[in-house]
């Protein structure tokens, strides 16, 4: 940094990225023109995929480095605003980009836990961690634990926790890359995974944090443009207002009105819905009757004959259930699917709706006052449980955000404490742009479905419905159950991931915009995967190898080990993703609870409580992590747990709500029963608390 001052560097970056943004827009326009001239959609998909991955690779190659500080923390000269963009891309994963609006579409208010949790956590990052970690100025989060608590055991626990959280998360990202690549180009999922992996590796392998940072800035720009254009378009189409975040208030009112109409059987639409629901109820009853007949046959010892009879009746299809158990499971699934369609439409903006038991009791002419009161209490209880879980989940996601190593690590890369503080602001600002748009998108699409799709004729469905139901029946399925030839809301099944991906088509935009949205989703998944892989590889190479096994290792050797590990971890993660593990979404959510329980107490108390010491950190981290994992194991079916084991009816995804307090208690009790930390450690705490002290020690790593 002799030739170029920080402000010249900033000007240069601004110029490059302005030019780059213009170039990207020009690229999209050229493709749009080519599309009009007859370029087939498949080619547009290939061009988008190839061009963006080549771009990321190019930035990776240009940023290659052999300098340790450049490799681990991008030379600590990333300006606040650019670090903010990089953190935004690092943070927003495939789940945020593709899944979030879909969750809001399906769950309404109750889905907002994710919006709140994934933004509010940055308040904790700003107030409790970022400036202090920056002053400390080393390379990884376990570094801080190792120095502050003066020992390899806290560091090792930190490494293990960092790997558990990051690995589950990176598998989900690579899985997302595979899905998007497959959809964009039509190649197989498994190949898509490895193609995406190549894109991830060229970035991080050559230039470490430096390459990842500059690629992430580029990826942020693509993903935010891709997210905004279709929403703005849809907003203009429905309201004439190009600011969807304001305009959707009036749309929400219209949605609420339609919901009321659907639920009122005295209106035309309501009557049609009622008839569709009745048809689903009949379907549910018929499957339940068949299950009862099957159970009877099995009990009488004639299960196999019953199975054969059913098979013959169905016309001997190849995919018919092979055993009575499988047949029962298939029927149960059908019965439950139909059952889900029999209830009234839930209101989008309503918080913590009860089970609707009271309405059902009131509709029943035989119900006594006591029955109604009991039903009311039942509703209240269901609503309270929902609220409790919502609060617990928001807390876990927030604290987890403030504990995930791949995010905290980013604040090591700014030039100063000052910039670290500003950088958290920019991070949240850039994340906020997408997150406060998602609720608007969900409502706009809902309005489109409620007002245009519902009531249209099966003979003339909108093109996007036909296209998507042909691509994937889990994303879009539509059946005329009451055979009136008209679409009712109950007859539509929509998968959450459809919302963002199909918005361009719903808004009537050309295919090139669909390609751009897919490229945005790819950018979101790749950027997050980059940051996570680097975190894992750095924890292993820097914390385990350099700090614990061979502290005298040469620079060349340290980087060689780091890069080697990066490839191994990436391959292992891609292999795991290609097996398509189920429950991937649960594991991602679980990563937040685990990080919150393991890291947050030890990190925060390490800065704010001088008395916290070695034993406290070890006890607190192990207890927090232990309680959190124990709760997941006893309550989550994947690990053999059952819901009956839940404490206060809290779902396993929010296990951190128990782990965190235990972690805090562990640090406090462990510290108080052992000696106060040494004078040197206390000096270290003062050192991180003040951006600059006269006669200060220096903890910066080289």
């Amino acid at each position, binding site marked *: 940094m002799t030739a170029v001052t920080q402000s010249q560097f900033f000007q240069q970056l601004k110029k490059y990225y302005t030019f780059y943004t213009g170039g990207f827009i020009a690229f999209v326009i050229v493709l749009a023109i080519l599309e009009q001239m007859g370029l087939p959609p498949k080619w547009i998909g290939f061009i988008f995929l190839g061009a963006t991955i080549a771009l990321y690779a190019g930035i990776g190659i240009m940023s290659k480095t052999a300098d340790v500080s450049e490799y681990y923390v991008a030379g600590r000269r990333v300006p606040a605003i650019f670090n903010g963009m990089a953190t935004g891309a690092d943070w927003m994963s495939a789940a945020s980009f593709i899944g979030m609006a879909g969750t809001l579409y399906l769950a309404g208010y109750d889905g907002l836990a994710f919006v709140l949790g994934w933004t509010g956590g940055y308040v904790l990052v700003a107030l409790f961690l970022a400036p202090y970690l920056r002053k400390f100025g080393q390379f990884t989060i376990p570094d801080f634990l190792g120095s502050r608590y003066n020992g390899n055991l806290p560091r090792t626990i930190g490494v293990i926790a960092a790997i558990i959280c990051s690995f589950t998360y990176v598998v989900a990202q690579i899985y997302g890359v595979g899905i998007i690549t497959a959809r964009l180009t039509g190649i197989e999922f498994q190949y898509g995974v490895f193609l995406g992996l190549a894109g991830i590796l060229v970035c991080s392998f050559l230039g470490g944090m430096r390459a990842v940072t500059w690629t992430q800035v580029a990826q942020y720009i693509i993903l935010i443009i891709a997210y905004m254009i279709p929403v703005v378009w849809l907003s203009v189409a429905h309201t004439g207002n190009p600011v969807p975040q304001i305009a959707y208030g009036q749309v929400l009112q219209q949605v609420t009105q339609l919901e009321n109409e659907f639920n009122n059987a005295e209106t035309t639409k309501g009557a049609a819905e009622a008839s569709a629901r009745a048809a689903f109820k009949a379907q549910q009853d018929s499957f339940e009757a068949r299950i009862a007949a099957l159970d009877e046959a099995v009990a009488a010892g004639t299960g196999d004959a019953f199975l054969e009879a059913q098979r013959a009746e169905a016309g001997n299809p190849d995919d018919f259930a092979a055993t009575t158990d499988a047949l029962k499971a298939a029927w149960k699934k059908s019965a439950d699917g139909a059952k889900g369609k029999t209830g009234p439409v839930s209101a*989008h903006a*309503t*918080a913590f709706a009860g089970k609707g038991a009271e309405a059902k009791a009131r509709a029943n002419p035989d119900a006594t006052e006591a029955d109604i009161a009991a039903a009311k209490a039942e509703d209240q209880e269901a609503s309270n449980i929902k609220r409790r879980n919502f609060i617990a989940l928001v807390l876990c996601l927030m604290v987890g955000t403030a504990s995930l190593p791949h995010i905290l690590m980013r604040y090591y890369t700014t030039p100063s404490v000052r910039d670290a503080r500003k950088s958290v602001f920019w991070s949240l600002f850039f994340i906020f742009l997408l997150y406060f748009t998602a609720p608007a998108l969900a409502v706009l699409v809902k309005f489109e479905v409620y007002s245009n799709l519902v009531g249209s004729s099966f003979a003339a469905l909108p093109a996007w419905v036909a296209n998507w139901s042909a691509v994937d029946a889990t994303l879009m399925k539509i059946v005329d159950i009451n055979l009136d030839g008209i679409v009712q809301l109950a007859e539509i099944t929509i998968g959450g991931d459809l919302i963002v991906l199909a918005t361009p088509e719903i808004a009537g935009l050309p295919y090139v915009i669909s390609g751009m949205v897919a490229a945005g989703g790819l950018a979101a998944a790749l950027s997050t995967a980059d940051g996570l892989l680097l975190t894992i590889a750095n924890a292993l190479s820097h914390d385990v190898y350099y700090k614990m096994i061979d502290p005298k290792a040469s620079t060349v050797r340290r980087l060689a080990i780091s890069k080697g590990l990066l490839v191994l971890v990436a391959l292992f993660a891609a292999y795991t993703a290609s097996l398509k593990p189920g429950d991937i979404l649960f594991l991602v959510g679980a990563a937040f609870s685990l990080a919150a329980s393991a890291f947050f107490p030890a990190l925060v108390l390490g800065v704010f409580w001088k008395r916290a010491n070695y034993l406290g950190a070890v006890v607190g981290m192990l207890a927090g992590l232990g309680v959190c994992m124990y709760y997941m194991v006893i309550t989550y079916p994947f690990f053999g747990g059952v819901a009956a084991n839940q404490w206060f009816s809290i779902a396993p995804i929010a296990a951190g709500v128990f782990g965190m307090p235990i972690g805090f208690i562990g640090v406090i009790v462990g510290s108080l029963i052992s000696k106060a930390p040494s004078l040197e450690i206390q000096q270290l705490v003062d050192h991180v608390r003040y951006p600059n002290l006269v006669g200060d020690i220096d903890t910066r790593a080289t």
Partner: protein
Amino acid sequence: MQLSEKHQEYWQRNLRMTAVLLAIWFVATFVVIYFAPQLNEIVIMGFPFAFYMGAQGSLIIYVLIIWFYARRMNQLDNEYGVQEGEE
């Protein structure tokens, strides 16, 4: 390295500000969620209030909290002479 009284004061002020901002964060998040069904009765510009807070309002408050903290702390650094030099 000896901390002067002024240094102690800087840290106290930092703690106070952290506590106040955390309290705002807590109200904007958890108090609003807790009373969401009641707050939703209030409708502003088509938005039920609690829904609006969850979707956008609280997010804006978070951004402002962090903006204010960065600005105020960077001022405090200068006031107490603990700011970093230009590198």
